């Protein structure tokens, strides 16, 4: 199917189930909130080696945060509920609490919760104070800069990781412009985040490797330099670069909408092909057919 000059390949993106949390970081100024968020989301591109995936969802104005200060919403996904608690504790403890003037709130209201503040509170060494307001419990931990505030528990919910689009271009610049344009468009959708640098992956991977101990390795089917070298190349002739946009979402609808917008944005930028990565439908519970995405519009 063609959209403008772009050929959308009849394939599907294969995504898999994860657990997700939304973390609201506030601070006295927008800059400190950003600093905390940046640190929080660092080294969180892929569960393969980072144990979790995280990125900024959006910035929140000081009229909408729980404490009416400038804030940032960050999404963090991991593979299990237990992992969620561990990752949140690590990252809030090391990256948010350490950042001046910040406070950290749960941004997901639903049934399942994992302990976060109740584990972080021990940093208070006995001087921590619990507070409950409107049924919400949080901890005040005395710190050198004053007080750090964190919710006792954070809501977690089943979420979807690994939604993706592949941008195939005859020139590397075209492919990259399309990929980053798509990433920008996708980021605007609430409930999704793009864990990789600027949302774009330059080194998409496949599962497994010929080497023992490697969980993933380069995806030779989409490596332009291996066309002709490997038999399973998926690239048409003339493709110089393939960039992947990976997107995670709190629910299927958000992910669908993000991917749809991504295809549109890529097409507007005149990329040659838009495709998607899958493992033949054997790995993930979710399949996002690119045609279906476009048709649902």
């Amino acid at each position, binding site marked *: 199917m063609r959209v403008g000059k772009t050929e959308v390949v009849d394939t599907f993106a294969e995504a898999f189930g994860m657990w997700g949390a939304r973390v609201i970081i506030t601070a006295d100024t927008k800059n400190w909130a950003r600093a905390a968020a940046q640190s929080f989301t660092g080294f969180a591109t892929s569960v393969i080696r980072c144990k979790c995936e995280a990125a900024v969802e959006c910035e929140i104005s000081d009229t909408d945060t729980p404490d*009416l200060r400038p804030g940032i919403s960050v999404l963090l996904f991991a593979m299990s509920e237990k992992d969620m608690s561990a990752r949140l504790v690590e990252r809030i403890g090391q990256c948010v609490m350490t950042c001046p003037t910040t406070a950290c709130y749960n941004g997901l209201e639903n049934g399942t919760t994992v302990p976060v503040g109740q584990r972080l509170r021990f940093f208070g060494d006995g001087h921590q*104070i619990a507070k409950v307001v409107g049924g919400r419990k949080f901890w005040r931990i005395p710190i050198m800069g004053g*007080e750090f*505030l964190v919710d006792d528990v954070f809501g977690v919910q089943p979420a979807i990781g690994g939604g993706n689009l592949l941008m195939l271009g005859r020139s590397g610049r075209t492919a990259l412009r399309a990929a980053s344009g798509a990433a920008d468009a996708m980021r605007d959708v609430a409930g999704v985040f793009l864990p990789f640098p600027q949302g774009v992956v330059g080194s998409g991977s496949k599962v497994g490797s010929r080497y023992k101990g490697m969980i993933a390795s380069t995806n030779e089917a989409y490596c332009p330099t291996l066309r002709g070298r490997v038999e399973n190349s998926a690239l048409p002739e003339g493709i110089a670069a393939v960039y992947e946009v990976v997107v995670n979402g709190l629910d299927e609808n958000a992910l669908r909408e993000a991917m749809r917008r991504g295809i549109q944005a890529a097409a507007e930028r005149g990329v040659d092909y838009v495709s998607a990565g899958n493992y033949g439908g054997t790995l993930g519970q979710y399949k996002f057919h690119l045609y279906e995405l476009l048709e649902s519009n």
Partner: protein
Amino acid sequence: MHTELELTTAPEVPIEAECLSPAKIKGLSQSGIEHLAMMHGNRKVRVGDFFRVTGNGQSSLRLEGDLSRVKYIGAGMKEGEVRVNGSAGMHLGAGMSGGVIRVSGDASDWVGPEMSGGRIEVMGNAGHMVGSAYRGQRVGIMGGEILIHGNVKNELGSAMRRGLIAVGGQAGDFVGVNMRAGTIVVMGGMGIRAGAGMVRGSIISFEPVELLPTFTYSCWLRPTFLRFYLCHLGQSGFEIDDDHMGGRYRRYCGDSVEENRGEILVFDSR
């Protein structure tokens, strides 16, 4: 839909009416409600002797008239709503664990003593010992919220263990005396000896407070957690200005005759 009870006969002596609570009237017919028993002094009387009942038993109860001599309205309630259009007598919502009570006028002494959940809102003033322990009890309220828009008298939140009490006007002496934990916000100033014997907990005053000699100044700060509370109170109809939301508060810790883990925050400046 709600059940309406209008006080049509003024009581000669106080009435005790725990039956004026959603769970007690739920599912009853109009005459069933009229036949519920109350105490009028030392005499057993029927609801119908004093109230005109409209409608059958709903989970929302509306009381009309001057009920300032009717005690124990909403006592022990777990769910539903009681709305008093007028004033309420002593022991309003005593021991309640859920649901909402709203009083458009004043409430008397002992509002929500030993409650553990739910919410009481009084638009007018309340008396002594709001949200407190009864005499002889070591622990007061265990949770829930009491929001008084007017003034209160002494011993606000005595021995409270958890929960939130907010007063829009003035409070009397011994605010948060012996409190175990929890939060008290008083916006219009308070009397002397606040926090006497407090173990933990927070007392927040928008006005200057005379403190006991056993409280120690620690620092000024702009408490983030307070913004959280004030937002919550702002949503409950209290007027919170930006100065109090983001301003500096002087923090005092005490009471040193106890564990010294409590705090009194006194608004200082913008």
